[in-house]
């Protein structure tokens, strides 16, 4: 029994490593096959933006290409990029903050994103599963169908559009919440109560724009799962046995919906992160999404590559962690 769990875990790790490598390579080759190299493109952009008429001299461009390793062949660039990435965790220097390495910029902003996103997703998921179970269990009641229909509408709102609406209502109209940032600029980072309150106050709206949509998204899929389980014969038997409904819901219904629901979370994580890039941008939250938008404006190539690869890695790792939970949820996997 121990062995089958072990091989399950190894199997999953290898699969995710493969997916990571394939996506990374496809992404790398695509970016490098687009005509024009990042240095030339960057200099062209600077010329346009600041109205410089003298084109940067060839020598400067050559020098930069050397520093960024762009004068080598495609395959050589690929292998050196990979080895640098895997052995030294190095994405190369940032263009804008040269010679600061891109990884430093990314590591500074990553904790903010993971903290806010992680908390919001967990809150949304737990609330959604609870609500979905209730309205699936009591599906005939009037309130359930009202909640369900409302949920159908709300779950279709993209998180970033809701974010704009929330900013409009709570910041511009009611002036209740701050415009952006992660904490008030007047405070020093510390463990004081005032600082923590400021953190929460700044995180509230971005978090709400995600939670509000995903609670209903999870609720709807949970309701469908519950209704499917309710059609099974063992539920009828359990009911006929006269089991208490709390036991029926906890042991018979919830447990059987938990596995597909967790899979659903794993699958939608990438999609949630997509929206989160924009939420951070809208709220000027100092996470990885805002860094990405700034890098896009500056065409900071290494930072863009780095952020994309880092988010890929984080999402895949989160998926892997979720899959490691499967054997705990479902004994069938434990037994292989």
């Amino acid at each position: 029994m121990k062995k089958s769990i072990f091989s399950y875990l190894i199997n999953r790790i290898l699969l995710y490593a493969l997916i990571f490598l394939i996506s990374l390579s496809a992404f790398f080759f695509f970016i490098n096959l687009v005509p024009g190299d990042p240095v030339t493109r960057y200099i062209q952009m600077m010329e346009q933006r600041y109205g410089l008429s003298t084109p940067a001299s060839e020598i400067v461009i050559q020098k930069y290409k050397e520093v960024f390793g762009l004068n080598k062949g495609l395959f050589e660039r690929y292998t050196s990029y990979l080895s640098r990435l895997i052995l030294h965790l190095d994405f190369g220097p940032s263009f804008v903050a040269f010679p600061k390495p891109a990884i430093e910029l990314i590591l500074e902003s990553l904790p903010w994103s993971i903290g806010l996103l992680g908390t919001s997703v967990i809150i949304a998921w737990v609330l959604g599963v609870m609500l979905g179970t209730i309205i699936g269990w009591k599906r005939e009641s009037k309130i359930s169908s009202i909640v369900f229909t409302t949920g159908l509408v709300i779950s279709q709102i993209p998180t970033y559009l809701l974010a704009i609406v929330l900013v409009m209502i709570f910041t511009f109209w009611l002036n209740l919440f701050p415009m952006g940032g992660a904490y008030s600029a007047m405070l020093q980072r510390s463990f004081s109560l005032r600082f923590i309150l400021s953190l929460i106050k700044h995180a509230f709206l971005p978090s709400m724009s995600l939670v509000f949509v995903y609670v209903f998204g999870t609720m709807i899929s949970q309701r469908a799962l519950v209704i499917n389980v309710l059609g099974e014969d063992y539920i009828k038997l359990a009911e006929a046995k006269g089991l208490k409904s709390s036991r029926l819901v906890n042991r018979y219904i919830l447990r059987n919906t938990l596995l597909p629901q967790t899979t659903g979370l794993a699958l939608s994580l990438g999609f949630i992160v997509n929206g989160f890039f924009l939420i951070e941008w809208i709220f000027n939250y100092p996470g990885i999404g805002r860094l990405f938008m700034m890098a896009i404006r500056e065409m900071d190539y290494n930072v863009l590559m780095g952020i994309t690869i880092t988010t890929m890695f984080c999402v895949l790792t989160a998926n892997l962690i979720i899959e490691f939970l499967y054997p705990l949820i479902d004994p069938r996997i434990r037994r292989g």
Partner: protein
Amino acid sequence: MKRVLLILKYSPKLTTGIIIILSLVLLAILEPTINYYRLGGRSSTEIGLFDTFLPPSREHPFGTEAYGRDVFSLLLTGLKYSLLIGFTAGALATAIAVVLASIAGYKGGRIEAFITTIANAILIIPSWPILAIIVLFVRKVDLFLLSLILAFFSWAGSSRQIKAQIASLRERPYIDLARVTGFSDLEIMFKEILPNFLPYIFVGFSYAVTGTIMAETALRLVGLGPADIPSLGQFINWAIYSGTLAQGHYIIVISPIAFLILTFVSLNLINVGLDEVFNPRLKQVTGV
């Protein structure tokens, strides 16, 4: 025809969804005519046609915005382009999904494993940043190219659903019968299997339309993509960057958002409605 009416009567969600999306499409189709009469033949994106920030009135039902353009006309133009990109990309994505899912679901084995892995990779990985970098780096993105790029990232979801459906259909006896009768693989796929999951293809299509419009709006919102295609996302971008919110002209930002949400909600109502009508398992349990 009678059957269609019966289905519509049976599922109010489906009917509501169809009515909303058809009205939106109709508005988009009539956009050139409406704007021609409202603006006297001038383009809705032309700057300085009217005074800036006029309040809503009879001539300007939603007022005018920071660059002196009529908000209602801009909305219609934006709706037209958003729907156009959504439907083009959605159709492309569905075509890719159907072909790949048919191959995977019908052939099985290694080919299936390969296609499934690629589809899962696209589903799991946050694809929007990749999309943004591609659009940033590829110069001269036109409407079709943009739709194609969007489609590439949105076929995976529908292909999953379609594949599951095919895999279950493959085991049915009448498929064996067709095979014994000497039908080719292609004939079986397109003559015997395809007609049986048309509703699922439509569900896949509407998911892809929603997904691509969302991704496109997100791109345009941050200022990426072709500036000469004034979709609703571009409109919101203009509104935000011209300080509309700070000056309290909320309707200019709310109206494009409302149009987008209406589109998404109506498509989803159609999906849910189709599921109610065609999913026998759901019917049995809910007892309707």
